[in-house]
């Protein structure tokens, strides 16, 4: 849009931005006056003017009159005169009169991602919807990266609030303590893309299977970034049922490494992966004691001191590569079939399971040092693998139950029974069992 506005220099505070899309809306509506909202960062001399209240708020709020011609008397904090050709003039109220002031435009939707044009066609991803389950250190970063890439629609699921213990690796900042993560991340997404559609679900998804199914069906892809297996298994089953792709990622102990699994309909599901020896459930990084106690990863009889030793939080820099891979895989899936600059990645990211090591510790202790590693596995490189469909998988295959070690259990049972038979009661008073 061509406007008469020009950028103010630093001496011309406040710096005022007018919502360009709102100028169009105002003209198109045909009304001559409509009061909107001004948002200012207190003490910073920066103000944004909108016709409609923002879903993310900051600082102090005031009023702005969008009009064809400003009234003589001062009736709002700001007035925006919109001419028929779409040009606008900003007036600021001071000393009971209007003062003309320069202003800039918040770009309209079509201009917002012009910088990434050529790599990712903006229009394509604006119509895509991503469901993100879990907005911790993984989910929060991934959500914002996808917003930056131009994904236009999100469903956010997490019932947690921003707390001190999860702040350091999280995108949220200290003055967001106590906010629902769904609200805080929705704001972060809208900050990158004010035109994104963001649906917030501050619920435990495991207790809302109908919501889970309907949201999976609406989504083009699902990011599973929770720290508990119940939601992973629930999601896995729902993805198979709905025929939607999904991405599962996690860090192992102290984020010494991590892995990423992608479910593509028709291929191996997350439960197939669990059945293979490659996936070690017990080594998962535990970063949140309350959450781990809830689902039994930390046994309820474990003392606070013991639990403290189990909770080992890795570096944010160590989980970023894993988040990054999840984002790339998501973008490739979303742009499949579209003519984009990342289409070539379709021929590279062909695996469904990816492993990464940050340090040569524990599980990766026998990996090679980076110098002279040659073809041998070393740190900070992705390794892909094909996980095959397990025909007996109860989720995606014909289904058969795991009875594998029943014989072992039976043998142990017989042993115990024999021991029981040969053990004499050391106390004839057997009144303890009631």
């Amino acid at each position: 849009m061509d406007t008469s506005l020009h950028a103010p220099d630093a001496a011309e505070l406040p710096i005022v931005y007018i919502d360009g899309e709102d100028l169009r809306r105002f003209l198109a509506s045909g009304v001559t006056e409509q009061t909107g909202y001004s948002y200012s960062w207190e003490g910073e001399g920066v103000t944004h003017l909108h016709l409609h209240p923002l879903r993310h708020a900051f600082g102090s709020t005031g009023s702005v009159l969008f009009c064809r011609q400003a009234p003589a008397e001062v009736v709002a904090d700001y007035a925006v005169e919109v001419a028929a050709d779409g040009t606008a003039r900003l007036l600021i109220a001071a000393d009971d009169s209007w003062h003309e002031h320069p202003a800039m435009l918040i770009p309209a939707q079509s201009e917002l991602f012009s910088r990434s044009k050529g790599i990712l066609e903006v229009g394509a991803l604006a119509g895509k919807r991503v469901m993100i389950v879990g907005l911790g250190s993984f989910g929060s970063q991934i959500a914002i990266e996808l917003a930056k890439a131009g994904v236009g629609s999100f469903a956010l699921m997490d019932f947690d609030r921003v707390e001190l213990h999860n702040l350091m690796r999280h995108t949220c900042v200290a003055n967001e303590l106590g906010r629902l993560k769904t609200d805080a991340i929705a704001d972060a997404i809208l900050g990158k893309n004010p035109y994104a559609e963001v649906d917030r679900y501050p619920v435990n998804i495991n207790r809302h299977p109908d919501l889970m199914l309907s949201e999976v069906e609406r989504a083009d892809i699902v990011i599973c970034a929770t720290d508990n297996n119940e939601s992973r298994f629930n999601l896995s089953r729902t993805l198979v049922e709905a025929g939607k792709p999904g991405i599962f990622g996690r860090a192992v102990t102290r984020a010494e490494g991590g892995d990423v699994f992608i479910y593509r309909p028709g291929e191996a599901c997350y439960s197939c992966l669990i059945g293979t020896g490659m996936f070690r459930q017990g080594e998962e990084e535990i970063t949140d004691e309350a959450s781990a106690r809830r689902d039994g990863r930390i046994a309820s009889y474990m003392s606070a001191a013991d639990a403290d030793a189990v909770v080992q939080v890795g570096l944010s820099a160590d989980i970023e590569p894993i988040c990054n891979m999840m984002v790339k895989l998501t973008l490739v899936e979303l742009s499949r079939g579209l003519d984009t600059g990342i289409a070539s990645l379709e021929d590279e990211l062909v695996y469904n399971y990816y492993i990464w090591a940050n340090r040569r510790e524990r599980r990766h202790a026998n990996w090679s040092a980076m110098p002279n590693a040659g073809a041998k596995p070393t740190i900070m490189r992705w390794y892909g693998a094909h996980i095959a469909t397990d025909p007996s998988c109860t989720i995606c295959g014909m289904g058969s139950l795991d009875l594998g070690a029943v014989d072992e259990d039976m043998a142990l049972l017989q042993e115990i029974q024999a021991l029981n038979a040969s053990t004499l009661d050391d106390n004839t008073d057997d009144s303890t069992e009631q």
Partner: protein
Amino acid sequence: MIDSTRQQMETQVLNHYLPATAYRFMDIGTSQPYLMMGMLTNSGKTYTIRIDLAHFPESVPEVYVTKMLYTKQGTAMDSPSASMHTLSSKYGFTRICHYGSNSWSPRVSLYKIFIKCRLWVEIYELHLKTGRPMDYYLNHQS
């Protein structure tokens, strides 16, 4: 939550190993389905086991002996104990620790859980005889 396909698969396996009178699915179709299973120990005592199926097979099901059990020392087994392999009780029942969430997979059958429970009960009876903690006989389920 357990669906009808899964229930059929479980029933097939249970029928293979147990008489049909040894188990019964309860409140199927509600939000709190569960399975009741009877067991007879070598000493001739009978126990009933309740397996809650509201979140099965996605997570480890809660399993109870349908009464409050007591240790040889006379303490109610109503709270989490590492040495006695119990968790916080519910319904006034002793809750037993049978599977750790780290080794859980949705493919684990109810029959397998049943065998773990039989093992638990036999060891409980051993404990009543010797006074040794159940831990002594049973390594922790990882």
